[in-house]
């Protein structure tokens, strides 16, 4: 029941996307149609989808690589005073993304980086990295250490240990943190606008339609949900909770 309540509202988006006319008091659309699809797929939406995808994947990957060693240290509780590290990690999550975007823009322009993909990746990293570290660290701990010791005494080289033992064992958390990282980057409006320098990004293309044109907004929203739903569905098929 609660589960139904959680998912039903989103289904209205699908109807809204394919309703050319749906005014009160009608409960069902007065007219169905593809106006939303036509408009959503015109202009720079496709390019924006590609850009957003590229940036989100790159950000998630970079974040994973940077976060891995830190998550190890924190997950295995090697620090005697972890609190300051956690505080530093949490800070970007506690600050409005709008403030970070505003604050970073000027520096990036000065460095001549604004508008480039690396700039977008770096900007998104500010929010993505903390999430990825915080999710990833739950995958490390005595259980994983024990498995790695097994691999070690069995003579596996560090690289093979990583490839054959550590990564498969940590796969669920690696997957979950990559997903979180991807989604945070994928849906970020503030930094995408501030650092994009006019490069089309999906949230930037979507936002003007929200409120102004519900049908186009709903269509773009579905497009926006696609990767998340895809990953969730794949995870369900694999019989594993990704989050």
């Amino acid at each position, binding site marked *: 029941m609660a589960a139904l309540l959680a998912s039903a509202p989103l289904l209205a*988006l699908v109807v809204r996307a394919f309703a050319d006319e749906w005014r*009160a008091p009608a409960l069902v659309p007065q007219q169905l149609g593809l106006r939303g699809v036509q408009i959503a797929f015109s202009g720079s939406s496709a390019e924006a989808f590609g850009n957003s995808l590229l940036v989100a994947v790159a950000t998630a990957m970079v974040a994973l690589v940077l976060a891995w060693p830190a998550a190890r240290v924190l997950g295995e509780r090697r620090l005697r005073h972890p*609190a300051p590290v956690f505080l530093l990690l949490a800070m970007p999550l506690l*600050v*409005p993304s709008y403030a970070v975007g505003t604050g970073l823009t000027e520096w990036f322009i000065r460095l001549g980086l604004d508008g480039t993909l690396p700039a977008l990746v770096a900007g998104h990293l500010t929010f993505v990295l903390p999430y990825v570290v915080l999710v990833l660290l739950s995958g490390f701990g005595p259980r994983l250490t024990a498995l790695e010791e097994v691999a070690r005494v069995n003579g596996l080289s560090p690289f093979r240990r990583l490839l054959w033992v550590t990564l498969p064992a940590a796969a669920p958390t690696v997957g979950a943190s990559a997903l979180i990282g991807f989604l945070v980057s994928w849906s970020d409006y503030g930094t995408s606008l501030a650092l994009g320098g006019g490069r089309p990004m999906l949230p930037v293309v979507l936002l003007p339609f929200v409120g102004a044109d519900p049908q186009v907004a709903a269509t773009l929203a579905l497009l*926006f949900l696609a990767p998340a739903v895809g990953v969730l569905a794949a995870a369900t098929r694999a019989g594993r*909770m990704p989050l």
Partner: protein
Amino acid sequence: MTGTRWRAGARWRAGARDAALLAPSLAALALLFGGAIIGAARVSLVPLGQGPTLEAWRDLFDDPLFADAVLFTVRTALLSTALAALVALGLALAVRRRGALVRILLALPVPVPHLLVATVAVVWLAPGGLADRALGGLPVTPVRDPAGMGIVLVYVYKEAPFLLLLVLAALGRGHQESDEAAAALGLTPFQRLRWVTWPTVRSPLVVGSIVVLAFALGAFEVPLAVGPSNPPTIAEYAREATQGDLVSGQSTAAAALLLSAVASIALAAIAVRAARDPQGG
């Protein structure tokens, strides 16, 4: 003698290695986040084409609208967080033994961006929205409600599943065993809730709630879509400032956002202290 020296050396080496492992991510964060904060501070203190001045900060504190915004933001954010935590806790207790499907359906709002949830809320709950049409009138109108109920509603819908995931994760690790042991010792369900379940979920719940609170304090998308026209939230206030005067507006906005950031960090520090162990039991 040499033994202790060797041990001290080993400890130092381990510490250095841990520091080296932490360095990449912490350095990246310090650089990006620190740069952002310094940048925002600079914007707030040095308006375009002028020397350093505290004018933006003075304007901010003199503006009765900003005071309204702070009060309203703190009130809705606290209410949203508390309700989301309560709902998450209740749901967690209800579904902790349910299968993956129920959990996935409940987790569905987690990957959905806030903006979309707000859009969906408007589709359903606005005057003339789907709920209104289906019921032939709504008893309350949460969208653009002066008390900010719409904002609270959207945040609860969006954040309760997020907290639920954290709570369920904590409940997954040996909680059922402890709970059985306590039941067998004669603890009533309520006592078990208080002494076994609550301590298990407290840390993740508090940490998650801090993130939710901070987000609710600083985001403008949801209030923009469903919040009342007055008072604004702090982030909305900042956004409106940038739409007003081109030169001083940006400085005022940066000052407002910085203030909200400091407030979030302070609140988080208090909450973490209250929850003691931030790493979770």
